[in-house]
């Protein structure tokens, strides 16, 4: 086994490769450090903190979905339980004046996630596929409903709160201001990303991929797929718990919404949108979805519709997620043929944007007429002002949709042809990925 592995394993990377590798991490760390210097408002810091939490949560979810092929509908259970335990921990530590500073408290959440994953995981991971998905759904509903019944522990629907500033202080950091919480979340996010990246490089990480692709073969090799799924489940539970803990510290409150279906659905969305096929995918997805869900509701009252339509579009046209879409261009970039597609992209962009603008115009006008019929027809959506009852608006919308669609379809066909040509050239030059 070890012989085989070593002979298949790639040779040690060259010094320049290694420098590049560590360089990326150091660059990320530096970026995290200076980010609040550029965007310092409370809202921005909260947004960054939430993105960090979402990154950890999505990456932990991808240990299941991307690495091991387990589709879970109840990952929020471990996130939520981690959050609850941390709130209780903060209250206990604060009341008893224990010498435990806030930065290590997320470990409590992680261990809670690990504990419950270890407890519930053995049964759930017996099978993969639909059975696993349905068990995860059932367990999630059970725990979320029980949270409303066990009021003393979970605090009913109001939840329980804590004060994070009442803990033992290191270096005079009170963790009251959001900026300190931002650095706490950033540090933990970096640590968790490194740890989860390292996990994918271990033999266990590789076996997870094998279990995902072909469990029978894994069995022939002498491993038990159940055990491997179980281990992956436990790791995912741990990091989900850490994410939940950070969320609880950020909000200083934990309630049953942490455990619920919405939370589980969001993490599934972020991970898939980002792209399950690449390690960086969930990170991209977490950033994108968190920013979108926070900003979209400011721009339009029917943000959920756009959200749904956007997801449908991604699932239909870009199953690899955003990262998959970007990674498609790698062979072109390396083969030096990216320049051949760019003009087609630019040409396709114009009618596509027109189509999207037409759709938005139509949707917003319809919304105005059904939701606020009596109000002032001069409405604003996405920063544009227009008169929703004027026939010109309707004609423009119709023109944009129909015209945009017809032209866009033709330009996308051209783009596909240009793309094929460019890819063929890149392949001929020897760049396949």
């Amino acid at each position: 086994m070890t012989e085989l592995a070593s002979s298949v394993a790639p040779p040690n990377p060259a010094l320049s490769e290694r420098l590049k590798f560590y360089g990326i991490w150091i660059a990320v760390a530096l970026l995290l450090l200076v980010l609040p210097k550029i965007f310092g408002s409370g809202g921005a810091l909260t947004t960054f903190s939430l993105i960090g939490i979402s990154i950890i949560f999505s990456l932990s979810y991808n240990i299941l979905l991307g690495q091991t092929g387990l589709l879970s509908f109840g990952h929020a259970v471990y996130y939520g339980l981690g959050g609850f335990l941390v709130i209780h921990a903060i209250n206990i530590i604060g009341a008893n004046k224990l010498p435990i500073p806030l930065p290590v408290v997320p470990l409590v959440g992680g261990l809670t996630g690990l504990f419950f994953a270890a407890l519930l995981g053995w049964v759930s991971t017996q099978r993969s596929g639909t059975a696993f998905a349905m068990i995860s759904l059932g367990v999630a509903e059970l725990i979320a409903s029980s949270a409303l019944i066990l009021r003393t522990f979970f605090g009913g629907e109001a939840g329980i709160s804590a004060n994070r500033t009442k803990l033992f202080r290191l270096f005079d950091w009170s963790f009251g201001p959001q900026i300190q919480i931002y650095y706490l979340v950033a540090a933990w996010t970096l640590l968790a990303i490194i740890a989860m990246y390292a996990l994918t490089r271990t033999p266990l990480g590789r076996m997870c991929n094998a279990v995902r692709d072909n469990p029978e073969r894994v069995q022939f090799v002498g491993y038990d797929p159940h055990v491997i799924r179980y281990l992956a489940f436990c790791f995912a539970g741990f990091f989900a718990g850490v994410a939940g803990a950070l969320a609880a510290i950020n909000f200083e409150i934990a309630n049953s919404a942490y455990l619920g279906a919405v939370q589980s659905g969001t993490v599934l969305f972020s991970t898939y949108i980002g792209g399950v096929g690449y390690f960086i995918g969930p990170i991209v997805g977490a950033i994108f979805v968190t920013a979108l869900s926070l900003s979209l509701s400011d721009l339009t009252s029917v943000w959920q519709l756009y959200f749904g339509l956007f997801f449908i579009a991604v699932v239909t046209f870009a199953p690899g997620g955003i990262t998959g879409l970007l990674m498609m261009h790698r062979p072109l970039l390396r083969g030096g043929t990216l320049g051949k597609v760019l003009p087609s992209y630019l040409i396709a962009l114009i009618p596509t944007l027109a189509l999207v603008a037409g759709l938005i115009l139509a949707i917003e006008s319809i919304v105005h007429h059904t939701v606020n019929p009596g109000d002032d027809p001069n409405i604003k959506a996405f920063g544009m002002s227009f008169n929703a009852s004027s026939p010109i608006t309707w004609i423009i919308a119709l023109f944009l949709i129909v015209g945009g669609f017809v032209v866009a379809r033709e330009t996308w066909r051209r783009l596909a042809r240009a793309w094929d040509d460019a890819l063929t050239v890149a392949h001929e030059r020897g760049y396949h990925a």
Partner: protein
Amino acid sequence: MISEGWCVVLELIVISTLNGVLFGMLLFLMASGLTVIFSMLGVLNFAHASFYMLGAFFGFQISRWVGFWPALFIAPLLAGALGAAVERFGLRRVHRNGHVAELLFTFGLAFAIEEIVQIIWGKSPVDFRIPASLDFPAFRIFSTNYPAYKMFMLLVSIAIFVGLLVVLKKSRVGLIVQAALTHPHMVGHLGHNVGRIFMLVFGVGTALAAVAGVIAGPALVTQSNMAALLGPILFVVVVVGGLGSLPGAFVASLLIGLVQTFAVSMNGSLAGAFGPLGPDYAQTWLSDIWGVTVAQVAPIMPYVLLVLILIFRPMGLLGTRET
């Protein structure tokens, strides 16, 4: 006194049974389509309950224009056509991106449908009324009226159940569908147009859900969150009954309908059975468990059932395939 007490208990049992069977039959109308779609296309159709909702809203709108009875037929046809279109132009395209993509597609669809319904009909319940010709009590059990409309709902669902059974067992299409349930690839190899069958099944399945919506709309609430309320329960029914098994879906629907209805009518709690806890434990989490009544845990019963079934009998009650 004793006999009066027994009357009350008996009344409760009879009414609860009727309500349970009715709820179960409604579930079955939806679950039958879902289970067939699920096993043929391998799609966990998250948007199935959305078609139930669309049925109710279409029914409401059409009954405003032309009356309830035409609506009962037109609304499911519309919803079914929409379902078939979703399969033809949406799911079939997504199919090559894998099962997770298909599932997410229906997930996003459910999301979008809910929002569209909210845009058109608003967010509060619409005034969808029972047709006047059915707005009278059917019979009286002791002192409780049982509405005629509910009997009508029961009859419609039973009629559809029987019709479905006949079509599946006797007609050619039914046989192909049955074959496709267990051996979808084989059916394709035999030269049947699997694509068209899929579209048909999806259309009929969603139309059945819409029928449930039209008849349930006036009796229950017609609101934009009605899909989200019923969706998860449907999955439970399908899995508990056994994937691809229509009789299984039938049994599971009735089982869950009855369990939920009867659990509601029971007030028992551990505190009631064993007396109150000692004062030392009065403020602990133990007291929460001790004081909770059967009625309060009624909504989570289906999920308990789901987890137990998946652990101990993964093929479901009457299923033959492992999930």
